[in-house]
């Protein structure tokens, strides 16, 4: 007999013999605060795909999504000791990720790009992103670009907050109250973001 509690929180397997318990995200985060590399690795493994997709949907670019989602994990590692456990880990991590995405959108407005004096990342002292050759070939790239292009077309007219609200609802399955906690606004405001975002989506679908 097996019992799984929550798809992404923690899983508890009660077998006939020994009991195997997977640590919850909150427990892993506490261990990350104590600089437990394995706990961090496990958290990244659990959340990397969804974090990347959420970032990709908001920022609309594969490279930026990779950059922003990785930055969210770095922030998680650096500030794990600030997670007080009063909210769920997913709410806390989503807040980090969404704020980074929204900041990224603000940083990349056209007039900021015009006055940008140096290439992004050039002063961070970080290694550059791997060359595309490390990834699958041009066909895969074309498929990825097409998929991202379709998604971007659908979300083009949504503000960053509307995008975040809609995607948290559609992709992450968060309720209005949870979206409000991530976006740090009232539940009514979160509902308005979702409503306006979905209205724009409907218009975009009609146009297609």
């Amino acid at each position: 007999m097996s019992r799984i509690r929550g798809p992404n929180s923690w899983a508890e397997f009660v077998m006939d013999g020994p009991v195997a318990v997977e640590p919850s995200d909150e427990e892993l985060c506490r261990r990350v605060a104590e600089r437990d590399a394995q706990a961090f690795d496990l958290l990244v493994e659990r959340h990397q795909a969804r974090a990347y997709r959420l970032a990709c949907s908001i920022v609309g670019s594969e490279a930026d999504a990779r950059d922003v989602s990785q930055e969210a994990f770095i922030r998680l590692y650096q500030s794990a000791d600030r997670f007080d456990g009063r909210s769920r880990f997913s709410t806390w991590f989503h807040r980090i990720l969404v704020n980074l995405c929204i900041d990224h959108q603000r940083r990349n407005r056209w007039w900021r790009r015009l006055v940008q004096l140096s290439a992004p990342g050039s002063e961070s002292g970080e290694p550059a992103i791997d060359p595309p050759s490390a990834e699958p070939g041009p066909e895969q790239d074309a498929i990825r670009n097409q998929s991202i292009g379709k998604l971007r077309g659908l979300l083009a007219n949504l503000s960053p907050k509307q995008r975040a609200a809609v995607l948290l609802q559609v992709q992450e399955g968060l309720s209005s109250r949870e979206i409000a906690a991530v976006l740090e606004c009232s539940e009514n405001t979160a509902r308005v973001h979702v409503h306006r975002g979905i209205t724009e989506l409907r218009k975009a679908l009609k146009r297609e």
Partner: protein
Amino acid sequence: MTTRHPETALVPYVRGELGSEEGARVARHLEGCASCREAADSAAAAMRELARRIEAVPIPDPAIYRAQLYRRLNARAEPGARGNAETRWWQPRIVGLSLGAFGVAAAALMLIFVMHQGARVVSPPPMDQLATQEDTMQEAAMTGADVGLLRDYPMVERLDLLENYDVIAHLDEVSPAPPANDENRS
């Protein structure tokens, strides 16, 4: 039928996250409102399509993704790495942006100043109106009402000027003064 459409509650209703009371209220509204029913159906369809497109986005190779992440993390951990350091004002980009912003602000201020000065420069009136304006000003200065004001003002109370104003205010009552008196006054 309720006239106010529960627009922002439609998506939560479709997703089944409303409480029983609010859910029942929205359901009652939907029974009688075709446009809201259409909006709710359309919203559900849009969300399904969005979910489908999100799922179609391929995720990067997990191993490569994590290798990049750990390289970045290690680069930050190295002493002297500036990746996560708070932005310092002397960083070249910040200096450039600050100088640019300062230049734009200075130019804007200059423009505002010039426009303001331009607005303040009044074109001279025609010559035939100049005399009239001067006369009007003199008349205003010579009215008897001003005498009362000056009298109330302690600093000028004892000035000889006040006497002159008195004389001016009552010119019609003044009899011609002997020449000796005029000399004494001045």
